[in-house]
């Protein structure tokens, strides 16, 4: 796109014809329209499902797919809470740690198999996290962010100080998955399911109410809806997602320790959401699919990769706050041209 020559021009954005045509039932009438609609979604779904098979060629990277999906789940949870409910939760590590430790307890102490311990840890972890975060729900803005940032740190220190749950050594000897395909597809399918389920969820009536809580909670209250109930529900959904990630991770590493509460699980999902594009949900997934392999590729640089993340994060926040997905969606659906004013 060439730069404007005078100040009398502006950029105009118009929806593509095909976008308008595909909005109604007529989308079904031609193959081109169907492809236009389904293309991006199928690309993500099929691409993700095929990824473990393609990566047979480079086995080292197969593990990265799992980690990538765990971060994508966390990023989804963050994106949902921040951009649809207005609660900025910097405590992704809290969800991971909670789900992880519960799953470790079920599996290691009570001897449950992984297909029981993961769902149980997910649900119980969701309940625990929600109950523990319940007192913070009336807070908002900076205050909620700071409180949630402190929770995982507090859990680390408590486990260290009281020397419970294996103390600093953690709990080892947790069952792994029976084979690597279960390992891959368990997380990939859950990630895809949650992504599309959340997209549906936020477009239901309840999603509208949640967005109302974000934009103007007083008016939601005035409509006779209890906002604390709404926020509790949203936190529970988000905690479920995070706890599943944690429970899965524990079985993947066959070990649970205080590094589950590490700041990585809080900061990388946020970076992923900012880079991918906040509020799109897909952006969160795409962001983590960019960041996590990048971090793996830069493993040799040691802690310098955190510097790179942070630089990218800051640059995106400052210069391109809409993120990649919003940009791509705009290019996909609209064309731009310069017009005289």
């Amino acid at each position, binding site marked *: 796109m060439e730069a404007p020559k005078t100040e009398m021009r502006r950029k105009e954005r118009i929806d593509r014809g095909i976008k308008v045509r595909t909005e109604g039932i007529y989308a079904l009438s031609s193959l081109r329209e169907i492809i236009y609609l389904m293309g991006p979604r199928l690309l993500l779904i099929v691409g993700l499902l095929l990824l473990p098979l393609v990566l047979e060629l480079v086995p080292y990277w197969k593990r990265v797919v799992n980690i990538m999906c765990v971060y994508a789940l966390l990023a989804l949870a963050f994106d949902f809470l*921040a951009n649809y409910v207005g609660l*900025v939760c*910097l405590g992704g590590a809290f969800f991971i740690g909670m789900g992880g430790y519960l799953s470790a307890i079920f599996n290691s102490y009570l001897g449950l198999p992984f297909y029981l311990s993961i769902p149980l840890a997910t649900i119980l972890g969701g309940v625990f996290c929600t109950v523990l975060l319940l*007192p*913070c729900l*009336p*807070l*908002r*803005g*900076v*205050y909620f*962010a*700071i*409180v949630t940032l*402190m*929770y995982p*740190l*507090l859990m680390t*220190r*408590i486990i*260290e*100080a009281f020397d419970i749950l294996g103390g600093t050594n953690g709990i080892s000897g947790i069952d792994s998955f029976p084979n690597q395909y279960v390992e891959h597809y368990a997380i990939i399918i859950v990630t895809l399911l949650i992504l599309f389920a959340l997209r549906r969820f936020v477009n239901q009536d309840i999603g509208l109410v949640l967005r109302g809580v974000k934009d103007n*909670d*007083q008016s939601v*209250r005035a409509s006779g809806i209890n*906002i604390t109930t709404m926020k509790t529900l949203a936190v529970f959904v988000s905690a479920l997602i995070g706890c599943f990630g944690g429970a899965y991770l524990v079985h993947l590493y066959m070990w649970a320790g205080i590094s589950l509460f590490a700041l990585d699980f809080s*900061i990388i999902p*946020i*970076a992923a959401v*900012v880079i991918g594009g906040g509020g799109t949900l897909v952006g969160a997934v795409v962001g983590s699919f960019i960041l996590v392999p990048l971090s793996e590729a830069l493993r040799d*640089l*040691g*802690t*310098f990769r*955190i*510097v790179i*993340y*942070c*630089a990218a*994060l*800051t640059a995106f*926040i*400052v*210069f391109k*706050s809409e993120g990649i997905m919003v940009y791509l969606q705009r290019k996909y659906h609209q064309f731009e041209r310069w017009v005289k004013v």
Partner: protein
Amino acid sequence: MEVLLYGIINSVILSLLSLGFTLVYSISRLPNFAHGALYIAAGYIVWLVINKLGLPYPVAIVVGILATSLIGALIYRFIIIRIRGMEISEIIATYAIGLAILEGLRWGGLRGMTFTLPAIFPGSVILFDVSVDYQRIFIVGIGALTFFLLYLFTHFNRIGLALRGIAQDERAAMMLGIDSDMTAIVSLAIGSGLAAFAAILLLPLGNIVVEAGYSVLIYAIAVCIIGGLGSWGGAIVGSFIIGFVQILTERFLSTHFQMVVALLAIIVTLLLKPSGLFGKQKELEERV
């Protein structure tokens, strides 16, 4: 007696740590999450000037404070100025900057126990049957002096008055010709300078380690939240509360609990009274 003495010392240390954070927040409403990173960066700069350039200690102190202030001003001028007013972006951006500085330093070789600053006054003395080194006594004295000087600066000086004007009512202050961005730059520079100042006073007590950067940030937040974000008197009271509780838990439980105290203090305060003991925020702004 030991509890009382070390409680006071610990409290003054905490309030010095949090002074820069409070100052920046009270003036420009900017939660500077890079505070801990600036603290460590200042210590590292001083160490570099002494050990690599071979300059005398006093010169290194001046260079350290000026350089850190400059970093603070640059962070505001080039990054934060663009996202001013978007609270969450401010938090994420400053936190990312802080993380980048700390992990960058770690990558650049700031590891292990080899980095120490010399004490300004070596040696120790027996006070009321308790052994206290001169450096700690010096810290208490200088800390008190700093509070006094800052009070004078903000009450009897054009720049200081401008800072307070912006803190009280940004629009009215702008109408009277006070440049909001300029004062924010100045406030962040002073805040970073104070972080550097605290680093120079406190780092001789231990080693310069990256992990300290994170705990400094948490202590600063804890103190400010208990006292009420943006309230100076509150920050000092808050640091005395946390300071004494920490010393007591250390004496009767174990040193592990120091950080637990700070973190629990943050959470409990935010749950019971988010505006803190002396906060001036309106109820509606922080909770529904």
